[in-house]
C-alpha cells in the first residue's frame, strides 16, 4: 500500500472521483495553481484543466453559492473553505440554501455538493483560525456532516461525500494534514456516511470521539478495555452503533475538540441517556477543552486540546471510581 500524507489522501480521492465522473469539479481559494493552501488538491489542475479546477476570488458567499447552483444544474462541485471560520461569511448558502433546496423543490432538485473545510486547533493559527464549529451545521435537516480521523477515512469519506446525492460538509482536522501512513485506494466499499467506526473493541467503557481526537483517544486508551468509536459522521450520526456498545459497557465517555459549552458531544450523551438510562453503570461525561478561545502559543494550545496523557488520566479515574473526573482547569483552580 502506498505511503501518503493525509492531505494527499484527499487530493487522491478528488482525483479518483474526477476521473470517474466528469461532473465533479473543484474550486476555492488557491486550490488550482497553488494546489491548495494545504496542498489538498495536488495535481488536479494539471490533470483536469482550468474548467474543472478553478481558483476563486476571496468570496466565500459567491463560490459556495456557485457550488449550490452548479450542483443544482447537474455538476458535482467540491468547494474548499480554507478555514472553518470563513464559513461565517457564507453560512447562508450552506444551511439555508443547499440544505433546503431539495425540500423546496418538492424533491425535484438535488444538490450533490461537497463543502470541504479545515478545522481545529494545533497549528498555532490563533483563536480565529482554530475552531471546529460543528455547531454551525447542526439543527439543519438535509445537511450531512462527516469528519475524517485518519488517512484512510479522509480518502473514503471524501469519495463517499462526492457520491452522495445531497450536500455534504467534510470537516478536515487541519492538524492531521501532515500525517503519513498507508492508504488503500479503492473504487467502492467506502466508509458509509451515517456509519460510525469501531476503532477498537472493548467491554469496560464506550468512548465516542471524532476527528483529531480519535487518534489521541486510541493512544490514551492503549491497554485499557475500552471500545473506541470514531463517529465519522456527525449528521446523521450512528445511534445504532453507539447504542450497541453502550448496552455492552454501560459507560459512555465523549472525547471532543469542541469546547464544553456548545460542543457536539452533548447530543450524543443526551440521546443515549434517554435511550439507555437503565443500562448505565456510571455517569456519562465529556472530555473536552475548556470554555475559552483557542490560545496561541505551543504550550497553551497543547494544554487546550485534550492530549492522550490527560484523556488517560481522566478515564482511569473514571473507571476506578465510577465518578466524573474533574477537568484540569478546575483541578488547577483556574475558573
Amino acid at each position, binding site marked *: 500500500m502506498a505511503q501518503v500524507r493525509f492531505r494527499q489522501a484527499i487530493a487522491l480521492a478528488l482525483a479518483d472521483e474526477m476521473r470517474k465522473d466528469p461532473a465533479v469539479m473543484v474550486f476555492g481559494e488557491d486550490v488550482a495553481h497553488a494546489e491548495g493552501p494545504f496542498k489538498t488538491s495536488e495535481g488536479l489542475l494539471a490533470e483536469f484543466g482550468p474548467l474543472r479546477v478553478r481558483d476563486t*476570488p476571496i468570496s466565500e458567499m*459567491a*463560490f459556495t*453559492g*456557485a457550488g449550490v447552483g452548479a450542483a443544482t444544474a447537474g455538476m458535482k462541485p467540491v468547494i474548499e473553505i480554507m478555514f472553518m471560520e470563513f464559513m461565517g461569511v457564507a453560512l447562508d448558502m450552506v444551511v*439555508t440554501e443547499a440544505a433546503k433546496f431539495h*425540500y423546496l423543490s418538492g424533491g425535484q432538485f438535488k444538490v*450533490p455538493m461537497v463543502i470541504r473545510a479545515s478545522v481545529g486547533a494545533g497549528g498555532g493559527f490563533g483563536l480565529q483560525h482554530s475552531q471546529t464549529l460543528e455547531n454551525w451545521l447542526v439543527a439543519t435537516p*438535509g445537511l450531512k456532516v462527516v469528519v475524517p480521523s485518519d488517512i484512510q477515512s479522509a480518502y473514503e469519506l471524501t469519495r463517499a461525500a462526492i457520491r452522495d446525492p445531497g450536500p455534504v460538509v467534510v470537516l478536515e482536522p487541519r492538524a492531521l494534514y501532515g500525517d503519513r501512513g498507508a492508504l488503500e485506494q479503492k473504487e467502492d466499499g467506502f466508509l458509509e456516511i451515517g456509519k460510525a467506526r469501531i476503532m477498537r473493541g472493548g467491554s469496560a467503557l464506550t468512548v465516542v470521539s471524532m476527528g483529531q481526537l480519535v487518534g489521541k483517544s486510541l493512544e490514551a486508551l492503549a491497554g485499557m478495555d475500552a471500545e473506541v468509536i470514531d463517529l465519522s459522521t456527525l449528521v446523521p450520526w450512528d445511534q445504532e452503533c453507539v447504542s450497541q456498545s453502550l448496552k455492552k459497557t454501560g459507560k459512555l465517555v465523549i472525547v471532543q475538540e469542541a469546547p464544553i459549552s456548545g460542543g457536539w458531544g452533548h447530543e450524543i450523551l443526551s440521546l443515549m441517556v434517554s435511550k439507555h438510562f437503565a443500562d448505565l453503570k456510571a455517569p456519562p461525561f465529556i472530555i473536552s477543552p475548556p470554555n475559552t478561545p483557542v490560545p496561541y502559543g505551543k504550550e497553551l494550545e497543547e494544554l487546550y486540546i485534550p492530549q492522550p496523557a490527560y484523556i488517560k488520566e481522566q478515564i482511569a479515574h473514571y473507571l476506578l471510581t465510577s465518578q466524573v473526573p474533574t477537568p484540569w482547569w478546575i483541578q488547577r483552580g483556574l475558573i
Partner: protein
Amino acid sequence: MTTRNAVQSKRRSGLRDPVEQLRRMFEIRYFEEEIVGLFSEGLVHGTTHTCQGQEALNVGLAVTLNSDDFVACTYRSHGFALALGLTPEAALGEIMGRTTGCIGGVGGSMHLSAPELGLLPTFAIVGAGLPIAAGAALAFQTRGEKRVAVAVFGDGAANIGAFHEALNLASVWKLPVIFLCDNNLYGEYSRIETTTSVVDIAQRASSYSMPSEIIDGMKVDEVIASLNRAIDRARSGGGPTLIEAKTYRYAGHSRADLATYRPEGELESWLPRDPILVRQNELVASGVLTLTQVEKISEEERAGIARVIEFTRNAPFPQPDAIFKNIWTG
C-alpha cells in the same frame, strides 16, 4: 404531473404571441389582486409579496428564455412563475398551502419551484439567488452548453454582499448569466435613495467591467429586446450582463402593507405607464385587437382566476407525512 407539464409547456411556448402576452399579464394582475383578499380572509398564512405593475418584466423574461435555462427569482415571484408557465392552480395551491401546490403546500408564497420550467426554488433570502444563478451558469459553461441563467433581484438587493461577490465572480469567469435588477424604487418600506449610494443600479456594472443596460421595465417589448441582447451575449461566450429595469411596486411590500410611506401621487404618476395598458394600447393601435376583444380577454382571465380560487379553496391540505418527505436526498 405530466398533464400539468403539458399545460405548462403550452403556456410557455404560446407566450411568443403578443396577444398571449397581454392575456398573461391580465392573469398575473388578477391573480395578485385576489391574493391580497385571500390573505385578509386568512386563507393565505404568514406573508405574501405581490407584483402588480411589474407584469411586463415577468412576461418579457419568460418570452426570451428556453425552458432549460435557469431562473433565480425572489419571494416576489408569483408573476414570474405564472409567466414562465406554472399553472395558476400550482401557484395558488402553494400559496394557500394545499397539496395542489407546486411543492405540495409545504413551502408557501415565498417558495415556488418549477424545475421543468427552469424556475429554481424562489429565494427568500435577499441576494441569495445571484451566486446560485452564477453557479448554474458555471455548470453550463463547464459542460460547454449554450444555456444561460438569470438572477432576478430587487434594487434593495444591490446593497448586499452577495450581489458584489456574484457579479465579480461572473465577470472573472465570463459566466453565461444575466443579472436582472427589478428596480421598483423600494426595499420594504425604504425608498431607494435612503439606502443606496447610486442613482442607477446599472452604474455598478463598471465595478465588474460588465456591460449593462437601463430599460423601461413597464414595456414588455423593451424588456424582451434588452434580455435578448444579454442572452445572445451570454450564449455566445460574451459573459454576464447587468440589466436594470425601472419598474414600480403598485402594492405595498407584503401582505397588508398599505405603503403609506410613499409620496403623495407617486403611484398615480406611474399608472399611465401601466404595462398592461401600454401593451393593450399598442395592440389596439396596430389593429391586432379591438377594445372589445381586449375586454373579453380581460374578463376571461378574471373568470379564470376566480375558477382557480374556487378549485383551490376545495383542494386538500397536506397530511403530516408531507413534513418528512424530501429532506434527505435519496
